[in-house]
């Protein structure tokens, strides 16, 4: 199935602003991120620590809703879903 990946700020500079990816039916956000890490070693280094865990400052939205990286990463995605990847907001 086809999903869309949006990346912003530092992650945009690594992944490009927008790409569509063909992933297997009912794949999870976690599997999608792993696939991106495989395609892009720079993304792997930016987003994951040595133990393979997602770094704290990687923020995610699915269909423009913030998701909890612990609870929601294993939920299966659906055709046409949009995953956004970005660092912390600009803040103060």
């Amino acid at each position, binding site marked *: 199935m086809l999903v869309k990946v*949006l990346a*912003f*700020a*530092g992650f*945009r500079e690594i992944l490009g602003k927008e790409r569509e990816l063909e992933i297997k039916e009912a794949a999870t956000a976690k599997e999608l991120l792993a696939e991106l890490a495989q395609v892009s070693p720079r993304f792997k280094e930016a987003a994951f620590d040595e133990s393979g865990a997602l770094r*704290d*400052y990687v923020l995610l*939205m699915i269909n*423009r809703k913030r998701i909890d990286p612990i609870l929601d990463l294993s939920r299966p995605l659906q055709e046409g879903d949009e995953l*956004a990847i*970005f*660092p*912390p*907001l*600009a*803040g*103060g």
Partner: protein
Amino acid sequence: MIKITEEDFSLDEMIKRARSKDAGAIVTFLGTVRDDGMERMEAEAFREAAQAELEAIQEEAMSRFHLMAAEIVHRTGSLAVGESIVAIVCSAGHREEAFSGCRYIIEELKKRVPLWKKEVGRDGERWVGRT
């Protein structure tokens, strides 16, 4: 009105829209690019998500502080030192509410709205974050 835009905007126009005969107080926040040794700033938005979040914040502020109007503009793209980045205009019956509403919107914007800024200096560039 809520706008995320590459173009410069007129604060004057925003204030004009916020005026009304029932408003006794209009408070405005204008954020500009401060010279911290940088050459320019680049602002980037997740536009659709940012627009939706700003609408939510505006609604919260309007009802919490009984605002008559709340105008929000945020720019994206390359901005020189001194240029406007963001403006918020709130009108209310009394000044307490107008000040609180304006403050609320800028604080929530900074916390919740998917916007990023990169400082571009003579010695390189860096994304501004809260980490």
